[in-house]
């Protein structure tokens, strides 16, 4: 899941596992926040996959995830503060799909 190919790296992503060279030497430590320059270096190295923190898009389609959310909130939507919670979840689920 958190494994992506170097062409999908974007600045701001953080490494879930260290990036090592062919000899196993750590070049970038776990947790490193990627910059455009670092991404270029990683691509130059020819690594085939990189582990990054955060989620790659979930396997269920976005529409389905959002309608599932509606279904779950159906009976409690009108209750106090549940609108705030639902809104946070809705935005959050959208975030998951980038």
């Amino acid at each position, binding site marked *: *899941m*958190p494994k992506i190919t170097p062409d999908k790296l974007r600045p701001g992503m953080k490494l*879930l596992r260290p990036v090592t060279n062919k000899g196993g030497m750590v070049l970038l430590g776990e947790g490193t926040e990627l910059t455009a320059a670092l991404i270029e270096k990683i691509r130059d190295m020819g690594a085939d996959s990189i582990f990054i*923190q*955060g*989620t790659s898009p979930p396997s269920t389609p976005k529409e389905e*995830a959002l309608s*599932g*959310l509606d279904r*779950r*909130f159906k*009976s*409690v939507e009108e*209750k*106090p*503060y*549940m609108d*705030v*919670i*639902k*809104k*946070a*979840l809705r*935005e*959050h689920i959208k*975030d*998951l799909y980038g």
Partner: protein
Amino acid sequence: MGNVAGIRDLRDKIENINALPTIPSVLKRLLEVIESPRVSLNEISNFISNDPALTTKILKMVNSPVYGFPGRISSVNQAVILLGLNVVKGLLLGVSVFELMQKTMIGLWEHSLGCAIIARLIAEKKGLKEPEEASVDGLLHDIGKVLLILRFPDKYEKAMCDTDANGISIYEAERVHYGTTHASVGSWMAQKWRFPQKLVDVIEHHHKPHLSKSAPVESAIVHLSDILVRARGFGFAGDHALMAVSPKSWQMLGLSEADLRDVLWAFEESLEMTEDLAL
């Protein structure tokens, strides 16, 4: 049921769950250790260390994002010293007991793990001193469900069927079938297992956190965590009904929509690192 004598009888049956032939002998020994009045850090740590599979599970958990020490704990002794007796006791119970649940309520482990993570994240956001205690609260909040299922599997199955058929929560269905709920049942056992009063209180009140006397903040945290994990569609806790948040507890926590989104995002990041915590 529902009368006083009925509840007393139910409580007796639950408290003597250790006598059931269906309880594996490893778990029996573990429950005896947990229950013993003067159990020491050493005894707990020896008990775990003598069982390689248990040791692996415990070390995986303490090094996961469920607790606050990612990758830093290398031995059971160290875990016990860093986290303290009660946290390790709770963890030990959690990893051992939910394993029995894999057939009856698939997803309860994920639900509990999710609550543990979110509870810790909210506790950190609120600046609580011991956020890892919130993890244990979250991990064990629904332990009463496990006990009811172990003791009365057929009845629980019926209660679960009622939830979808009648559009009620498992909490309400339990009240119909048992005259009480997993919240009370869990708190009886937490008391018997000599967990701290705060944990007993959180388990008892996680669906009615405004009634909590000794742990209103912790109860509110677990209450909200439970709602968020369900709302996110993660795990399964016996029904498909979302319960409304307690207005008083929500106000007490005073979290904004942005705070919730921070917590949820940190939760997703934690999940990614938690993939191998499957039992």
